[in-house]
Every structure is written in structure tokens, then in C-alpha cells.
């Protein structure tokens, strides 16, 4: 029997992994279709970073899983975790599974998420779990770049042409409802926080808001303020979009089970 505390920690790690993988997957849909070659390369870079982070977290979750429930007939790996769980077991937030939309929507999604992930990893470096602290430290370097790149684009589009400004407003309308969830702790996050393995989201909230406000001001975009918020992704209650993502992502592993690739 796996102990409750290991279970919570594994869920916490899977949540971090799923966020990174799903956003990495979404961004990878741009590869070959970007608005200009340099940005095609940039968004692919971010996608690669996020998938890499996801892999680090999955590998760690797999290790803990195998240690806590030794089952010789089934060993967890990064791939079983990414490819063989179904939608209700995925713990990513709703924001990262939203469709790419236009470049404005992709940029805004990246910015809102990177701002969150930046402060998250900054705190997670202090985790008393050494592996998590190490992954956070390594990933923070990458996310620092993601945040800078996406901030610059938010400003460029917000303060660019009237069309780009309007498209940013539309993107805010589309995505703002998914921002609240980032900073509302799920049960495993509360638990991880109490054991000092995870991060206290209440510390993150003011930092995230300040960052987003600053960039919105520079981008001449209005602060959306309090709006109704959709939540549930972190607890496995997703939008319909995730089902289609998984259908593609998991296609090969489902169609040809048990193969090496």
C-alpha cells in the first residue's frame, strides 16, 4: 500500500509535469506554421523546454511510483505516465489546454503561464525535496527566457497596430477566465505545501498579478480585474479540448501497445 503522503507528492509532481507537457504540445502545433521564421524557431524552443521539463517531472514521478508500489508486471515510466493515463487523471490547469487560436492568443497564454511558472519555480527551488528543487533550478533559467520573450510580444502586439491591439483584447476575453485556477491550490498542492515539498500559491498570487499588470500597462492593455473563473483542470475536470490532445498524443501507444519506439 502506498502511503498517503507519497500519493500526494506524486500527484503534485504529475500536476507540474502535465502543465508543462500539455503546453509544450500545444506550442509544438505551431512548428512549421509560425508567422515568421524566427518566431517559428522561438516557439519551438519554448515547446522543447516545456516538454523537457515535463519529462524530468514524469521520470521522477515514475521513480516514486515504482518505489512505493513495486509491481514487477508493470513499471511506470515517463511514457506510461504521459501516454497511458486518461483525461480524468491529467492534472494540468485549463489554461494550457486551450487551443492556440491566433498568434495573440498563443502569446497571451504563454505569457500568463510563464509569469506563473517563473514565480513557481523560483519558490520551488527551496523545496525540501532535492529532486524537485534541482528541476526547478534548471527550469527557471528556461522560463526566465519564456517570460521575457512572451512579455515582449504582449507589449509589441498590445501597442502595435489597432488590429493587433484588438486581437489582444479578444485573447484576454478568451483566456482570462482560466487564470484564477493557476493560483488556487488543489488538495495535493496544499498537502505538498504543508510538507514544504511544494510551493505556497498565496505567496505567488501578488507577484503574478504585479507582473501581469506591469506588462499590460506597457502594452496599453486594460487590467481585466475580477471576472468569473473556470476551475477544475487540476482535479481532472477538463475542457473538451484535452480529449482531442490526448487522442493525438497517445495515438501510437494506444494503437500499438507494449512496443519499443
Amino acid at each position, binding site marked *: 500500500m502506498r502511503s498517503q503522503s507519497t500519493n500526494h507528492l506524486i500527484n503534485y509532481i504529475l500536476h507540474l509535469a502535465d502543465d508543462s507537457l500539455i503546453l509544450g504540445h500545444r506550442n*509544438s502545433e505551431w512548428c*512549421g*506554421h509560425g508567422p515568421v521564421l524566427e518566431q517559428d524557431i522561438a516557439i519551438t524552443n519554448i515547446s*522543447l523546454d516545456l516538454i523537457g521539463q*515535463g519529462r524530468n517531472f514524469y521520470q521522477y514521478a515514475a521513480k516514486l511510483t515504482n518505489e512505493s508500489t513495486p509491481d514487477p508486471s508493470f513499471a511506470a515510466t515517463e*511514457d506510461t505516465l*504521459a501516454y497511458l493515463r486518461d483525461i480524468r487523471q491529467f492534472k494540468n490547469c485549463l489554461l494550457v489546454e486551450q487551443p492556440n487560436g491566433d498568434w495573440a492568443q498563443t502569446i497571451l497564454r504563454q505569457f500568463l503561464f510563464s509569469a506563473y511558472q517563473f514565480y513557481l519555480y523560483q519558490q520551488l527551488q527551496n523545496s525540501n525535496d532535492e529532486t524537485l528543487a534541482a528541476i526547478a533550478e534548471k527550469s527557471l533559467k528556461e522560463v526566465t527566457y519564456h517570460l521575457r520573450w512572451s512579455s515582449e510580444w504582449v507589449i509589441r502586439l498590445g501597442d502595435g497596430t489597432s488590429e493587433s491591439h484588438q486581437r489582444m483584447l479578444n485573447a484576454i476575453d478568451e483566456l482570462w477566465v482560466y487564470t484564477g485556477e493557476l493560483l488556487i491550490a488543489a488538495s495535493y498542492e496544499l498537502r505538498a505545501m504543508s510538507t514544504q515539498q511544494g510551493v505556497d500559491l498565496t505567496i505567488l498570487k501578488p507577484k503574478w498579478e504585479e507582473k501581469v499588470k506591469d506588462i499590460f500597462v506597457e502594452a496599453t492593455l486594460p487590467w481585466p480585474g475580477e471576472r468569473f473563473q473556470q476551475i477544475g483542470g487540476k482535479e481532472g475536470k477538463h475542457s473538451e479540448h484535452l480529449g482531442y490532445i490526448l487522442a493525438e498524443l497517445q495515438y501510437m501507444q494506444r494503437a500499438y501497445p507494449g512496443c*519499443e519506439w
Partner: protein
Amino acid sequence: MSVQDLEKIFQGKIDDEIKIEPKDWMPEKYRQSLIRQVSQHAHSEIVGMLPEGNWITRAPSLKRKAILLAKVQDEAGHGLYLYSATETLGVTREQTINDLHSGKAKYSSIFNYPTLTWADIGAIGWLVDGAAILNQVMLTRTSFGPYARAMVRICKEESFHQRQGFEILLVLSTGSKEQKEMCQDAINRWWWPSLMMFGPHDSESTHFDQSMKWKIKRKSNDELRQNFVDMIAEQVKVLRMTLPDPELKWKEKTGHYDFGEINWEEFWNVVKGNGPCNRQRLEARRKAWQDGQWVREAAGAYSEKRKVRSQAA
């Protein structure tokens, strides 16, 4: 100096293996020929992202996904170097891209074939990047400096791509029955189109003599194709798969493999736009460009504003 004198100096440099640089005098036909070739090469890199990009979201493992994504990104980088090399010849990237979209400029026909299974990603890396390498290694010695230097950077990455592709197939070739079938099927479908990548026979090639004299090309299409066949015919043994050519035979006397005749009717059909994916590839490129129009405009408008503001400050 007379044009004849300039031409003499120019050909003298070429004969002495001195690279031609963008500011040097060059015959207009040399410039045009390079613009055509380098831009076509750039377009091939970019359009080439599409068939493989098609499998990024479906790659069978996280490791494969990351490798494929990085590979396709490399191709974008190659396109970027090559568009820059084209710009040194006096054509903007925008003009070059417009020629692609209007159908005036060509790209490698191989990318007009569909990627149907995961094994196709292996076959493309092994065969298509493999064929590209032979051509590009030759081009590291091409007479135009910026093109040659771009090729040096690109070749390093291409050999990675080929190894990764081969490795995908190697895993399949030792896998389940379905995986083995998938592997052989992909080789069967990609083999002939890969041979077509080297272009028509030398006797049919319109620019051949001039390209050789100017050392834009340094080996003929048929010579490169033979090198490719000799290389792949050996490597396929490691996979324990076969190449779909009953005439493929080692000839002790020549030290090369004999191989069957390419279906040239298919070749010209695909060149003319009748391949399985010509429309779809070009449409994807046009759409990306059109959808990105407002983004490029916004970026331009913003940098203008910044310039004005910093001048006012």
C-alpha cells in the same frame, strides 16, 4: 574595365578555388543561377518541415517527440541561413517567399509525398536527409562564399538527422511484426522518390554544364545518385530490410551497385505540381504567411513607435 576582363578575373578566381563574395563582380547569369538554386534550397528546408511536422503531435514517445521537434526546428534554422545567403545576392526574403507562394520558385519534390506512418519519419531522416547530405557536402565546396559557409553549418546537423532517422528504423526493424511491416513499407514508398531527389540524368539537366564550369555544382546528378545508392544498399542490410528494386545488384567490375530506372513520368508529374501533396504543402505555407501578416505588421509598427519615442526622448 571591360566586361570581358571582369569575366576573365571572375573565372580565374573560380579556377583558383577562390570563393566569390557578394561584393565581387559576377556575371548576371551566375547571380541569377545562384538566386534560383539557393532560394529553392531554402524553400525545400521550409516546406520540408511540413511532412515531418505532421508527426510531432503523434510521436510515439516523449523522447522521440523531443528529437523530432528539434529536428524540424533545425530545418527552420537551415531555411533561415539560406534565405540570408539569398539576400546577399540582392533579393529580399519577402520577394523570395512570394516566388514560392506564387508557384514561380520550386522546392524539392520529395516533400510532396505524404507521411502516413511513424516509420516514414525514420525513412525521411535516413533516406531524404541522407540524400540531402551528399548534395550538401558537395555544396560546402561551391564557389559562392555565403552558400558554401551556410552548407558547412548545415551539414553537421544533417548527419545527426540521418543517424536519428536510421535509429528510428533500427528500433522498428527489431520490434513487433507490425513494426517491421511498417518499416519495410516506409522504405518501399520513400526509396524511389529519394533517388529522384538528385534530379534528371545529366544529359537532361538544363543547367548542368554551366553549373560545373562555375563550380556551383561539383558533382553531377548521376554521380551523386550512384554514391547514394552505394551507401544505402549497404546500410539497408543492417536493418535486414530490402530496397524495392529487383535490378539492384553489386557489380564487382565497376565497384558500384547497378540499379533500375527511375519512373521519370512520375518525377516530372510531381515537379509540375501533380504529386500527392503539392497543393496542400503550398497551401499550408501560404496560410502561415497570410495568417502572420498582421503579426509582422504589428511588430513593424511597434518598432517604428519605439524609434520615434527614443528620438523624442
